[in-house]
């Protein structure tokens, strides 16, 4: 009837307001129940929760190993374990924290739960692949645990050759475990990219995409492009150990430095796999708790992509003293400084977002401010290490250890905890004890600094990493650091305690306890099994805090009429930019 109108770009669709329920009777946790429904679920929310459970478990396993390592370092000589046990412990601490916790933490756990909600989709693009990704993760973790029990590994998480091709123990099985986990990571990446491209709700244009989605998008690109290189490298190590093919071991005609190139070609971008999703979390929380439009949306979104791209070109900064050419070192150092710029841009934009905001210092925001300080220190010490002359002195000392813990724990774990606190009400339908959350955040912050600030000093003084014995001069620093690690551990335990406690008898959460404009808060708490009872329609950006809430709770009108139905109070054009109030 109106062909002329539908062929133009301003085709009108009807929308109506769907106000979310605070505590619906039916939700994703009770529509299907029983163990089997969990094990075979293709619901992204349940898979996200299973990932959350698994990574929490491995976080505590890795954490206990860290405490054992720190306890051993209380005295300069042997404190309570043998050198070989110590070497296995720090290897497993690194491998578990990186491959089983940090890499999947935000994308696979929080991302799985939140991404489709933010896109207005019923699930990810490939729900079964998503479940497979979880089982691959479990399989890889199982193989890794098997290798620990079956000889252990003492190579460090970096598996440097020719040490790793010649040492005893279960290196081959461990490497295979990491290989399998890598595929889990790749599948998550493929799934997210497809989902973001193909499953956005009507009106959700790229310039309205939440920055958390941009973060996950950049992360997914890195996961897909970098992880196969790790898989190939580890497969080569396995072949060298099993078949005796000389690739990395000079005794068989290989080149040990080649391994480092391959390994860091993955593992440097992997650092961004771990931190870029955290950036997304920061953007969401800062805007929500300052009720303010994000400052520099495109600067933040594109800087994530810039980091993902440049991040591929800086791997050689791990190898300034490896014997690589001076020219190569110069180029890698230069590119390393370039990757610092987009990161700095983000920090400034987040700070500017607070300007003239309405800031409510709730626990998620408090964790974000913890992130701010710690990540800033981590980033700036990265500038120190990127400078070749300084790296020659500081490489492989505790300075590096402190640097990456500031980035990974201070940055990523803080961002992860912030995200967990932020989305906890949506995920579980319960509120945690806010006072305890703030106290725990303070304890973690203090514990973290007490643990790792002394390590900067030790490292500058020359204390090498991965040392079982050390010279007495460093003992006071080590002891302060060990005390700090126990404070830190206490903080994490406290978080675990009050979050679990909230599940049993915590105050019930409303649909949108923070007053956020983002889409995941415009549906029921807890969410329905298929997320939306309607097809959501987006006319405003997720950070348009200057607009009233009603404009964010829209969906396609259930019974389309001729355009003048009684229920619809708004109309939206197909490009989502014009609104006509009825």
């Amino acid at each position: 009837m109106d062909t002329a109108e539908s062929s133009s770009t301003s085709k009108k669709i009807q929308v109506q307001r769907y106000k979310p329920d605070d505590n619906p009777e039916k939700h994703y946790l009770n529509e299907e129940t029983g163990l089997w429904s969990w094990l075979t679920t293709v619901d992204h929310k349940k898979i996200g929760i299973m990932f959350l459970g698994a990574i929490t478990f491995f976080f505590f396993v890795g954490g206990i190993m860290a405490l054992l390592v720190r306890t051993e370092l209380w005295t300069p000589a042997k404190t309570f374990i043998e050198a070989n046990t110590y070497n296995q412990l720090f290897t497993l601490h690194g491998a578990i924290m990186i491959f089983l916790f940090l890499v999947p933490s935000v994308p696979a756990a929080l991302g799985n739960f939140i991404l489709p909600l933010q896109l207005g989709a019923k699930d990810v693009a490939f729900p079964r692949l998503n479940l497979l990704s979880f089982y691959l993760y479990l399989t890889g973790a199982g193989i890794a645990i098997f290798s620990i029990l079956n000889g252990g590994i003492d190579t460090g998480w970096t598996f440097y050759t020719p040490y790793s091709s010649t040492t005893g123990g279960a290196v081959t099985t461990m490497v295979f475990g990491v290989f399998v986990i890598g595929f889990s990571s790749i599948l998550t990446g493929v799934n997210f990219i497809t989902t973001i491209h193909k499953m956005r709700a009507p009106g959700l244009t790229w310039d309205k995409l939440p920055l958390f989605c941009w973060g996950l998008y950049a992360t997914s690109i890195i996961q897909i492009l970098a992880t196969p290189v790790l898989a190939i490298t580890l497969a080569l190590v396995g072949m060298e150990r099993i078949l005796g093919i000389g690739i990395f071991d000079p005794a068989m005609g290989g080149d040990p430095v080649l391994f480092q190139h391959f390994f860091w070609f993955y593992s440097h971008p992997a650092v961004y796999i771990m931190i870029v999703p955290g950036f997304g979390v920061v953007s969401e929380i800062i805007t929500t708790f300052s009720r303010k439009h994000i400052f520099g949306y495109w600067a933040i979104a594109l800087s994530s992509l810039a980091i993902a791209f440049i991040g591929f070109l800086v791997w050689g900064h791990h190898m300034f003293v490896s014997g690589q050419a001076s020219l190569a070192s110069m180029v890698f150092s230069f590119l390393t400084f370039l990757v610092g710029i987009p990161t700095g841009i983000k920090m400034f934009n987040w700070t500017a977002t607070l300007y003239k905001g309405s800031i409510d210092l709730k626990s998620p925001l408090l964790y974000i401010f913890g992130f701010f300080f710690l990540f800033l220190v981590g980033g700036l010490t990265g500038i120190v290490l990127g400078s070749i002359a300084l790296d020659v002195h500081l490489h492989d000392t505790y300075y590096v250890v402190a640097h990456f813990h500031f980035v990974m724990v201070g940055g990523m774990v803080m961002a992860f905890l912030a995200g967990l606190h932020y989305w906890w009400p949506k995920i579980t339908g319960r509120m945690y004890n806010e006072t305890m959350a703030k106290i725990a955040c303070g304890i973690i912050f203090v514990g973290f600094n007490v643990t790792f600030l002394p390590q900067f000093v030790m490292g500058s003084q020359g204390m090498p990493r991965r040392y079982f014995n050390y010279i007495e001069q460093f003992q006071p620093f080590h002891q302060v650091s060990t005390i700090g690690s126990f404070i830190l551990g206490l903080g994490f335990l406290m978080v675990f305690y009050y979050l679990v406690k909230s599940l049993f008898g915590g105050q019930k959460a409303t649909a949108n306890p923070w007053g956020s404009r983002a889409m995941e808060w415009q549906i029921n708490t807890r969410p329905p099994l298929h997320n939306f009872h309607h097809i959501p329609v987006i006319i405003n950006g997720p950070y348009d805090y200057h607009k009233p809430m009603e404009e964010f709770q829209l969906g396609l009108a259930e019974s389309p009429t001729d355009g003048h139905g009684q229920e619809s109070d708004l109309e939206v054009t197909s490009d989502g930019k014009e609104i006509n109030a009825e």
Partner: protein
Amino acid sequence: MDAIKDFFLPPAKSTLAEQTDALFWFVHGSSLILTIGLIAVIVYFVYKYRRKSEDEVTPLITHNNALEVTWSVIPLVLVLIVFGWGYQVFMNQTVVPDDAYEVNVTAQKWIWQFQYENGAQSTGKLHVPADRPVKLIMSSKDVIHSFFVPDYRLKQDVVPGRYTEMWFNAPEPGESIIFCTEYCGDGHSDMLGEVIVHEQEEFENWLAENAGGGSKPEDLAPEEWGEQLAQEWACTTCHSTDGSQMTGPTWQGKFGSEQNFEDGSTVTVDENYLRESILEPNAKIVEGYPAVMNTYQGQLNDEQINAIIEYIKTLK
């Protein structure tokens, strides 16, 4: 000021160490200013714009191109300074002066060995002349190690199958610690050494005394020399002399005892067995211990091996 320097950095004992330190303080100083500035702004905003009522509406501020350019370009200029400066110092560290005195360095689990022009050798202790550029030509016999002297702000990986180089000039006589900084197994943290900087004349004397290397000092009994060698060659990194458990079997009470091997065989420890264990460590693997020892074939001469065996005999 000096107290702060000493707290953060080891003493600067090479000609180039001061250059590294200047950059170190520049980057840390500017980082500190930036950190304090940014945190102060955040704290101020959080206080100034704290939520006063639930109905507050915030203004729409989407972006500001002038600001974006400013806070991109200023840090860019700063990091380019750090890059150029760091590269320049690195080139000074890398380009070896023509008149450098050369010493060969061999790393293996878990000792540093040094060979000098006249055949002199030393283990664990690097002897060099003061106020003269010294070039180290380094290689590893097994896995990757890394030669690190914090006092010189220098580090270089030592890789099997190729030579790597580094150089330094220590103006004053003195001693500095050497760390291994590339993880190399159970004895990694015991793979320490020492650079001993002599006055030129004193160095010449040391070199002359040790020419040819490997013969017994006249004032020592064989077992005393053996004890000294066991220290120098870092045997005691893995083998205790007091019965305590380490990477390898203890030497205490070893001579004359029954030794059980992984393959089930046994032998009574005598001179032949000890000699074989030093030259072909993997011929017989003691039960319960990893096969990680390297051969000392071509490194210890017969006289030295005899001395070490004499020393082991004294450890009842």
